[in-house]
């Protein structure tokens, strides 16, 4: 078609402009800012430096970084361990129940995670339900200090992020060809072999996608650490926020964000590789 198409031009132009101006440009500016020096009156001084990245490896910040990575990794692992069997059991439910059951997983995922984090505070506080329950059961003699601990932060992130793990897992598990499992069983494979050699490789893209959707937000959710961790837990998200709000060190905050983006890049790459492998494996 060689006709002039004003509609096509407008459509492509509008979305192209918007994404360039508000997605591409801000991220480029972020990278640029991370390479500049901290300014006095202005937010940045126009002097090129790699110092911000070097400072990320300063023991003080490296500690926060490693702590945050550990919290996010623990959350992701728990999400996976709880979510995988759950998603699998969902696919085994009667077909007419599944849409409703799935909707019930999605409903909390569409409600404010701030509200849900706050609900978690109510549950975990010293005179909260969980302590009350444990006291009534006689398992503990004194209320436990549950709130303002690392465990509380992990519990809060687990609560906020679990649906993000379940949904991609459900998507791959539902597509899983049951005949492959039956064939493997007929050929004498045990359950462990079947899981390791068939189910796991074919659901790997879902696992990686789920980890991507839980691990990355798990590094950034500063309000979860604020509300549930008090001063005990600091995420990369808190570190970044503080650079922009209180410390006024924008370049350093930008460098920490670029680090998050690089991590995202790696995870997306892993997803791409796993999806390609799984697709190739599915071909005859």
């Amino acid at each position, binding site marked *: 078609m060689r006709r002039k198409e004003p509609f096509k031009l407008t459509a492509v132009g509008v979305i192209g402009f918007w994404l360039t101006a*508000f997605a591409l440009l*801000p991220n480029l500016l*972020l990278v640029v800012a991370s390479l500049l020096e901290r300014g006095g009156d202005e937010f940045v001084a126009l002097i090129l430096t790699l110092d911000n990245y070097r400072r990320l490896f300063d023991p003080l910040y490296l500690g926060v970084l490693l702590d945050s990575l550990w919290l996010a990794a623990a959350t992701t692992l728990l999400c996976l361990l709880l979510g995988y069997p759950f998603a699998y059991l969902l696919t085994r439910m009667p077909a007419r129940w599944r849409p409703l059951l799935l*909707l019930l997983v999605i409903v909390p995922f569409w409600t404010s995670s701030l509200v849900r984090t706050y609900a978690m505070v109510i549950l975990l506080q010293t005179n909260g339900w969980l302590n009350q329950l444990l006291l009534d059961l006689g398992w503990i003699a004194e209320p436990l200090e549950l709130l303002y601990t690392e465990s509380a932060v992990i519990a809060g992130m687990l609560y906020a992020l679990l649906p993000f793990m379940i949904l991609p897992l459900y998507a791959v598990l539902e597509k899983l060809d049951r005949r492959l499992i039956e064939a493997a069983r007929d050929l004498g494979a045990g359950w462990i072999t079947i899981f390791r050699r068939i189910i796991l490789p074919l659901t790997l893209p879902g696992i990686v996608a789920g980890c991507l959707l839980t691990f990355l937000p798990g590094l*950034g959710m500063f309000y979860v650490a604020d509300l549930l961790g008090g001063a005990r837990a600091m995420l990369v998200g808190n570190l970044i926020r503080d650079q922009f709000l209180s410390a006024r060190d924008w370049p350093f905050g930008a460098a920490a964000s670029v680090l*998050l983006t690089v991590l995202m890049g790696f995870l997306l790459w892993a997803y791409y590789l796993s999806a390609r492998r799984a697709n190739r494996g599915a071909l005859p």
Partner: protein
Amino acid sequence: MSPRNAARTAYLVLIYGFLYLPILVLIVYSFNDAKYSLEWRGVTWTWYRNLLDDPDLLQAALNSVLIAALSATVATGIGALAAVALYRYEFFGKPLLQGLIFVLMMTPDIVMGIALLILFASLSLPLGFWTLLLAHITFNIPFVVVTVLSRISGFDRHLLEAARDLGATEFQAVRRVVLPLLMPAVAAGWLLSFTLSMDDVMVSFFVTGPTFEILPLKIYSMARLGVTPEINALCTLMLGATLILILIAQLLLRERT
């Protein structure tokens, strides 16, 4: 029920319990007639009434609805246009555009928040209503694109070709043929955007100023000081509003599929 089935059901119930119990507790306590005690002292509307007496809070709620409605509307327009363009046309830079939409959706909220903050600061835009609106439109767009694209893929191309053959311009064909058929997805995209915008904390945190306060940030600053029944009531209201919107969106998407 065999023991194995019982174990399966128990596991499902346990996870659903984990997902819903805290929300349930929140709702229950928003009606409890006791300020600090967790003992049940009967139903009260006091906390809800207190909310109505707080002009700052009402203003923040109004601001939130305003931003959510405006950003959802603009994002739906741009997102639907983008979905149609991605479905129908080949053009220079299409893979880049698709990649950008995908990356935009995956970008951690905090990174998007500060990237936009840096953009607004370098343009010397004062933080407030406009910056918040631009940010919300931006993070809503990919969700609209995905919602609309998911419906477009089952779309009969011949309808468009027929309209073109009968002399409709591209714009007319899209407006009179494609848009009506996509309406449920467009409406669902709008509602999804609206709820995402109402709930956002992390992006808004960086791109709004003291002149323009919104509900989630208000809740955040209140919740940092501790648990009060008023916040329970406020969160319950937000929850209820979100659920109603989502149910409408679900009904819209289910229609005719």
